[in-house]
Every structure is written in C-alpha cells, then in structure tokens.
C-alpha cells in the first residue's frame, strides 16, 4: 500500500486539539505570513534536514524543524495548523538551525507561529504556558525576568541542596554581594520605579499586554491594577 504524506506525520486528534474549519486554519497561516519577520526567516526549503541534525529538541521529542520549514514553504495550511497545536512549543529557541543552507531561520518561523497561537488563544499556547505565567508576572511587575527569591527548593528540587542554602540565607547572602544594585531579593537588580512604568507602557502600547490577556486573563487584570496605581502615583497618562 502506498504510504501517504500524512501517514508519516502525526495524526490529527492524537493530542486532542479542536478540529476547526479550513478557513480558520487559513486565516491563522495568513497571520503568520503577514508578520514582518516572516520574509527574513523563510526563503524556501531544500528539505535537506541539516536543521534537524543540529536541533536539540529533535533529539528528545517527536519534533523536526525541517517539517516546520517544509510545511510553511509548501503552504500546507492543514499541516501548519497541526504543528501550531502540537509541535511549536517543543523548540528550544537555540537557533542552531540558522545554519540552514537556504538561509532560513526555522526557530524564528516557530516564534512567529507561537505568537499567532497566543494571539488566537490556541489550546497549545495555554497548555504550554501553564505554570509559566508566574514568570510573566515577575517580568511585568519587576522589570527583570527572574529573581533570587524564585530559588525555592520546592520549585527546583532537581537543582541540588544548594538551592535550599540560597533560599535559607537569601536576604543575608544578597547583602553579601558588593554591587549596590544587587541587594534585592524579589528582583534581579534594583530597577528604578520610573523605568518599570516605562516598560509597562511599552507592553501596553505595542499590544504585548493584550497577548498576556489571551493566555491568562486573571494575570492581565492583576497587572493592569498594579500598573494603574503606579502610573497614577507618577502622574503619567496612558
């Protein structure tokens, strides 16, 4: 029996995502192609697989940057949709794949697909970011992505007993670092209030805040309230 293309790929329904109409899938693909980075990230695909050979995620998951570049280059609307629901969150964003001889950036294409998945509130985005939204809260509320007080043994049990040492001694050990900006525990360094508000305004003006709303409405509300207060304190109009 001849093997059809789709039999080599993941069967739809396996991961339990919603089947949607072709028009919806097409619209999603159009959004991906409309991104200004798209034309710099895809020039066609030789299907040579060099990107797969260097891809860390391909070694540990049923994942292939070639499959992604190929589907997008062939404008395979069905397959692109399937990949947006199943594959894209497995990429490590290391950009080893930019050694592509066709000058593609498969990791970049995946990033654009992820943004489209977020903007459309796709199930894969919500699932992938479950447990991650506290990090979004951290960056939005402190201006820094991670902080010393995240080093809790229950959050990082696999990082060894040193994590407990850090968390037990956190405040003291932070004061025992010489740079004046680093005596903080809830942010990586001491970010000025004004700077933080400026970051918030950037996220607000560029629509990044709306993206957070798609993933976690509760978080979005908390951030809005927090920042409204700060904006008011500083007399800044949005």
């Amino acid at each position, binding site marked *: 029996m001849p093997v059809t293309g789709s039999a080599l790929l993941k069967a739809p329904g396996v991961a339990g995502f919603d089947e949607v109409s072709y028009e919806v899938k097409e619209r999603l693909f159009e959004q991906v192609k409309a991104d200004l980075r798209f034309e710099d990230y895809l020039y066609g695909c030789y299907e040579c697989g060099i990107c797969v050979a260097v891809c860390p995620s391909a070694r540990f998951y049923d994942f292939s940057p070639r499959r992604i570049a190929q589907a997008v280059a062939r404008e395979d609307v069905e397959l692109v949709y399937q990949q947006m629901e199943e594959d894209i969150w497995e990429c*490590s964003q290391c950009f080893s794949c930019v050694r592509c001889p066709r000058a593609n950036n498969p990791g970049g294409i995946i990033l654009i697909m992820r943004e489209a998945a977020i903007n459309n509130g796709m199930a894969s985005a919500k699932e992938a970011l479950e447990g991650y939204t506290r990090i979004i809260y951290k960056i939005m509320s402190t201006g820094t992505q991670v902080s010393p007080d995240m080093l809790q043994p229950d959050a990082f049990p*696999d990082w060894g007993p040193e994590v407990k040492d850090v968390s037990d001694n956190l405040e*003291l050990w932070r004061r025992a670092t010489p740079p004046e900006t680093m005596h903080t525990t809830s942010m990586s*360094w001491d970010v000025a209030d004004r700077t933080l508000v400026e970051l918030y305004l950037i*996220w607000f003006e560029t629509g990044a805040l709306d993206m957070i709303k798609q993933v976690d409405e509760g978080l979005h509300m908390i951030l809005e309230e927090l920042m409204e207060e700060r904006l008011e304190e500083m007399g800044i109009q949005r």
Partner: protein
Amino acid sequence: MTIPVAALLKKKEKFERDPQRLPEDFREEVFRLEEEGEWIVDRVPEPFVEAPTKYGRSKKVPIANLWHHKSCGQCGHIPGYSTSIFWVMRKLGMDYNDPRDQTSCTAWNYYASATSNSAAQAAVAMRNFAAAKETGYFPLIHCGTSYGHYKEVREELILHPELRREVRDVLAKLGKPMVMPEEIVHYSEWFWAMRNEIAAKQVVNVDGIVATVHPACHYYKLVEGDAIYDPDVYGGQRTAIVTGLAEALGAEVRSYSTWFDCCGFGFRHILVQRDFTRSFATMRKIEVMKEEANPDVVLTHDTGCVTTLDKSQFAAQAHGRNVGVPVMSEAQFAALAMGAHPYRVCQLHWHSADYRPLLEKMGIDWEAAWAEFQEDLKRLERGEIEFLSWEDCDA
C-alpha cells in the same frame, strides 16, 4: 562511534577568509539612517580594540566608560557572574556605570512564551539604549541572549521602516529619542579584547587546569557575522571568545565533539520542562566533555548556559551518570586567576556542581576563604555593616 575530532580539525586547520563572503556592513545602514534623521548613533568611545569577526569585518570593542546592561539570570541566580565582571573592570581601573534605569531585555520571555512581538521587543531595546546614552556611557551587554536578540532587533529596525515608526512613536511617549549603538558589544568580547591585560595581572597559576568551553548559541548563532572569530583560535573555525581568554591565562582548552550543541536551556524548558533540559545538558554536553576531554572546569559566557550546565548535574548524579564538573563563566575564572575571593567576588556558594576540587588544583584555599566569608556574614548579621563593599572584597 566516536567522532574523529582531531582528524577533522586537522583538515580544517588552514584558515582563509573568502572576500566574496564578506556581507554588507550593517553600519553603513546604521549611519545612513542617522543622516536621514531616523535615529542617533551612539558611537563607540575611544579607546577601543578592533576585533576580527566571522566574515572579516572589524568590530570595535570599547574598553572603558561602559554602561553595564545587566542580565536578569546572572544578577538573580549567579550573582558572582556579574560581580566578577565589575571586579575585573575595577582591577583594570575602568570607570563604569551600573544603572537602575535598565530593564531586562525581555528576550527570555519572548523566546519562552512568545507573549510579545517585534515592536515590543524593539521598544524595550531602544529604551535601554536611550537610557545608556543619557548617561554618556556606552552599553556593554552582559547576557548572551540580550546580545543576540538586540542584534536581531537592529536588523529588523534597519529593514523595516514601519517598525521604526511604531517604535519611535512609543519612545516619544516615554520622552526618549531613538538611539542605536554603533556596535552591540557583549561583555565576553571585552574580556577577549582585554585578555593580555588580564593575564598581566594574574596571580594564580592555571597552567595545569584543563577547561572545556561551551560557546553560547545566542552569542554566535544569532546574527552570526557579529561574533569574534580569530584565525589563531581553532583556526578561525569557531568563535574565539572564552577560549582566547582561557588560553591567554595559561589554561589548556580541550575540544569535544558536541561543542556546537546548545546547553539545553530552552527558555521555557528550564523553568517548566526541565526533564528535557537536564537530559540534554548532561547527555549531550557534560558527559561528552567528561569522556572526551575530562575537564577540571567548564567555561562559558552566558547566563542560561552557566545555569543549565551547572544545575542539571545534580539529578544526573543521582542516576549515577558520568557528571560532576564545575561550571562557571570565563569572567569568574579570570577573576579567580587575578586573585579574586571565591565567595566575596565569585560567589561560588550559589553554584551547584562541586567547584572545590578546581580551587584546590588552582592552589586556592577555599576553606580559609569560606571562613572569611562566614565572618563577613556575621558582621552583616550584627549590623556592623549593611552590605559587603568592594573594599571588603580585597580586605
């Protein structure tokens, strides 16, 4: 099957740059856009060192008056990384600015969660660049991801007028002008440029120390033409960063077959899917290094790589895997070689993999140093001092 690394390297040992492959110099565009009033170019201040990059363009690496664009992962989880960068700069007598008016580049979040977009990312970068310009100091980027991402942002801004317009409008609301640095410079480029000056101030001999180097993906894979490649290091076939410094200090840098592999950080994975990160970091990096090079230390030059390679070993050790090698930045290693205190400056107590055998091999009495540091902590607890100062570091 093991990969015949030595034979492959020999085959490639002759290095010639192909002038045909020299891409256009982005700086022409950067200056043209300045002439057109699109932005102000923040020029690399004198003195600077000219460094060769992948395809032959010469890159200006500024030496002094630097605005330290800190890294959230370094300051937050590996504080000895940032502290060592500052300490080495102070030892070489360089004036610098450690700003509070700086945010994370937010690229970690961009790559991890994609809850951002090109306009937001470019505006964050340009806000930080404008903040640097206000101080009169030139930005030096501590994080490999910030560095790689800012170069992506630069390309996007050069290529897309509509993006420039959007970002300019956002910055205008913050009262900030559009500022583009003439060069985007990573701290490890500064260490490479200053390697001989650093070696001249070396007080700890590292001749017998074997190191393996993990080059950071976002340093040399993203906008690759900007990374430093020196014909004298690996025959110009890999970035010279870290290795050039370690060799200048006298350490032996050994190769291993998976040098091109990433560390396994994964951005989202290191936080919420660490089974992948741990497996990759130990099976594709640490174990291969151990088997092929048996290093005393793994040196790297980025936030995520130090964290991943260091922290991933604990669980693998529990499974009896062939791991157990300290991991640190070349900045920390250079600081140790210059006589920095392993705890007050290098803050090694924040690391997981056992670094003590390395210190012993370097002739550093870590027990005495730890006792000194415990005394510091007591002084802090008693309220005699509020913070540890730079003067305390060299007491």
